[in-house]
């Protein structure tokens, strides 16, 4: 590359110009993302609370303290349950809908638009809307089910139900993400192996199992991984609808961090947990990146 630059002054000018053009954006990115990230890394190794702000080096104390916290384990467990539930259910519904949409010929765009709309709504707005819908006394959901004789359900206040309520709202919001990606994958599949399968005697189900699924594997894996990474970071729904409650029923890790920092006032420890979350997300992203590279 250096040799090329020496021989190719125009190329080098091009690159310099490129750097110059991207410099402002890059600077902003560094300031807004990299800066706080590095600061968090630093603070996580320091004993800093909003009651006793200070920069005494604490090494890995914050990390150890985090794991010692009773509710940290609970929060991790709730997060894992949530992520698994949401990704699997959204995948199943999404794939079914994508398969159906794939064989639709008329009004495809209309269905597409309708199904896409929830995804376009800001998550905070989604949470607010559903919080109102799900209000035990005044919400429309309980009103409607009351019309058919079902007694009122305390969607967000009942510790046994709240978790699944949040899962359902997230599904309503995000399932179209799956639909879009999987539909794109399905429509890009070559037609001929399916005709060959039909001639070979495959039923629709057999063609699906032996041809569609294997050929869709790259798209499915990428879609699941992307959704997984985003699911781990779910915050808005919990913050608006349940504040992590009732009890710790919906205490997802991102909300746990928020609580530690602004209610527990322990910035140091919250930073430590953030770093742990960052590592997990980075690991998933790295895996996704490597998988996508291997497809090329």
């Amino acid at each position, binding site marked *: 590359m250096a040799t090329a630059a020496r021989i190719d002054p125009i190329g080098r000018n091009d690159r310099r110009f490129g750097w110059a053009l991207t410099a402002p954006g890059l600077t902003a990115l560094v300031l807004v993302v990299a800066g706080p990230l590095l600061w968090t890394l630093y603070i996580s190794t320091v004993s800093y609370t909003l009651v006793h702000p200070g920069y005494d080096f604490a090494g890995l104390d914050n990390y150890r303290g985090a794991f010692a916290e009773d509710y940290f384990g609970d929060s991790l467990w709730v997060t894992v349950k949530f992520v698994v539930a949401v990704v699997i259910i959204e995948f199943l519904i999404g794939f079914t809908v994508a398969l159906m949409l794939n064989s639709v010929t008329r009004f495809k765009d209309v269905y597409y638009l309708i199904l896409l709309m929830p995804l376009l709504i800001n998550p905070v707005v989604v949470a607010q809307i559903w919080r109102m819908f799900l209000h035990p006394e005044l919400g429309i959901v309980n009103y409607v089910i009351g019309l058919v004789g079902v007694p009122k359900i305390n969607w967000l206040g009942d510790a046994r139900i709240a978790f699944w309520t949040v899962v359902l709202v997230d599904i309503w919001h995000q399932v179209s993400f799956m639909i879009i990606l999987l539909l794109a994958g399905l429509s890009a599949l*070559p037609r*001929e192996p399916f*005709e*060959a*399968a039909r*001639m*070979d*005697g*495959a039923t629709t189900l057999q063609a699906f199992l032996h041809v569609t699924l294997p*050929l869709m594997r790259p798209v499915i894996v990428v879609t699941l991984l992307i959704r997984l990474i985003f699911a781990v970071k779910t915050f808005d729904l919990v913050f608006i609808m349940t504040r992590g409650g009732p009890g710790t029923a919906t205490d997802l890790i991102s909300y746990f961090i928020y609580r530690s920092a602004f209610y527990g006032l322990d910035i140091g420890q919250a930073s430590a947990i953030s770093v742990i979350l960052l590592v997990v997300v980075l690991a998933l992203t790295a895996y996704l990146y490597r998988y996508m590279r291997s497809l090329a």
Partner: protein
Amino acid sequence: MADINLISVNKTYPPDVKAVEDVNLHIKDGEFMILLGPSGCGKSTTLRMIAGLESITSGDLYLGDKRINDVDPRDRNLAIVFQNYALYPHMTVRANLSFGLRLRRQPRATIEKRVGEVAEMLGIRDLLNRKPAALSGGQRQRVALGRALVRDPVAFLLDEPLSNLDAKLRAGMRTELIKLHQQLGRTIVHVTHDQVEAMTMGQRICIMKDGRIVQVGPPLEVYRNPVNTFVAGFLASPPMNLLQARLEPDGPGGLAAVHDGLRIAIPSAYMQAYAAFAGKPVILGIRPEDMYDEPVMGGVPFEARIVTVEALGPETILVAGIDGGSELSARLGRGFAARPGSPQRLYVDPWQVQLFDPETTLAIPRPQI
């Protein structure tokens, strides 16, 4: 019985695109039938209707005595080889070959044996563990063929299977397909736009144009007696020369086809057949191989000017211009050599010349001598 019968079959795509119109064709059990025609003539659509991959708009399709219009392709017991092979990209060659049998839950031993036999027959034994992406075009083609063979269907449908192969491979596969047909004796319906394939492989050719059947018959028969100018100009390469001419009186009670300086006296045996066209315009058809650069018995001489000489090795293709500006292709022996622009006397065999009605483009029937 695996004869295939198409009766008044039509395929119309909405709103009103007639891909296949009023096709009547009876393919006999064990026959090697070629569907030949230019792109867009409806031959692939016809094949796909036989397979069941396209629905039949109207008409009847029979396999043996059974009407199979509404029978799912799965249950027709036919096998198709696609132009692009349509192999399962994620499966090995072995898995590709055995897929049909595995779906039908055949015992493992049977499947292994059958796959082995077919792989041996097609020379792809060494490729069984490879995936399609690691195969060359010719190898993929043989796997596609193998997949059809393993299923042991009552008839094979081939959709331009040789089109994507290079010339040498194509020639080799042509021979292999012919041998396969002799070995198995099954009905084969082969779609192609290549008239060399049609002439060499088919027991009968069905020529299609614009969705309709133009002529059906054994290759040599269709070649010798094309039903119209389209068939005459489509078969053989270079194709039959077609010239605008007039049938003029030639001596007492005689006729000659005249095109500018070219005057060919009609043999008396044909006189009666052509009598109705005396004095009228006709289309004069001369095959390149019926022209000679040396005097032949009964040959009609004419003067021409050489345009191009293509020395192919075993023969030479000459393009010569005649008075009036038309150009003729002639197939001459390997020894022929001449310079473009130089004059050349050529001879035509008048017995082989054919006349067509310019209005209907149909060949004017004449007695077989």
